């Protein structure tokens, strides 16, 4: 069974992302939304943790939430796919369940 995990909190403020990474099964998808998008950026204190987790899970980030916060898609970690709202819908369809790490 495959799960889509969504994380909407900044990794600097809460441990939602690290908990998600720790507990997501290999082959899961992790979608970063709202303040969670800061976890997708290069050069941060959390980039290495995310890059390491990408060996086990596929990562996505919601483009409109990046744009709202002035975060450039050019500085998203290589291998994290930027999706729009219809891409978000597709991800929910592709997985059996969705878990929100609020």
């Amino acid at each position, binding site marked *: 069974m495959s799960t889509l995990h969504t994380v909407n909190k900044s990794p600097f403020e809460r441990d939602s992302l690290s908990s998600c990474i720790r507990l997501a099964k290999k082959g899961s998808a992790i979608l970063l939304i709202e303040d969670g998008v*800061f976890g997708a950026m290069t050069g941060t204190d959390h980039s290495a943790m995310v890059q390491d987790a990408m060996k086990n899970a596929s990562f996505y980030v919601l*483009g409109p939430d990046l744009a709202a916060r002035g*975060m450039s898609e050019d500085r998203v970690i290589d291998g994290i796919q930027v999706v729009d709202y219809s891409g978000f819908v597709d991800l929910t369809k592709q997985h059996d369940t969705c878990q929100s790490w609020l």
Partner: protein
Amino acid sequence: MSTKKFMYVNRKAPYGTVYALESLEVVLIGAAFEQDVSLCFVGDGVYQIAKNQKTDGIGMKNFSPTFKALGDYEVNKLYVEKESLEARGLTLDDLMDLTWEDEDDDYAEKPSIRLVSSAELAEVLDEQDVVLSF
């Protein structure tokens, strides 16, 4: 009425929660009282003044241009903690160009953002009469 030193401490990213917008509104209201106002941006608060915010896609109002108006209200001390920027892979270039016009210096445009270390910011916070946290 004597003038007091007011510091608004901003520690939250914009849009995900309402803190950043609420802080800015209180700063603007407070500006009418002609006090000695400073703002500081710490932790995720530094994201509030990031350049190129475009909110059309999330259906929320982009309030970042309002920071550019602060100079007109004589709110021109915006302290940014260097350590917070660095932890987020950001530099001053990633922040909006926020300036004010110094009427005592032929209306010269001067930067409002002051990049400070944690130790320097601790000193500034220690000098305040009133600290408001957001």
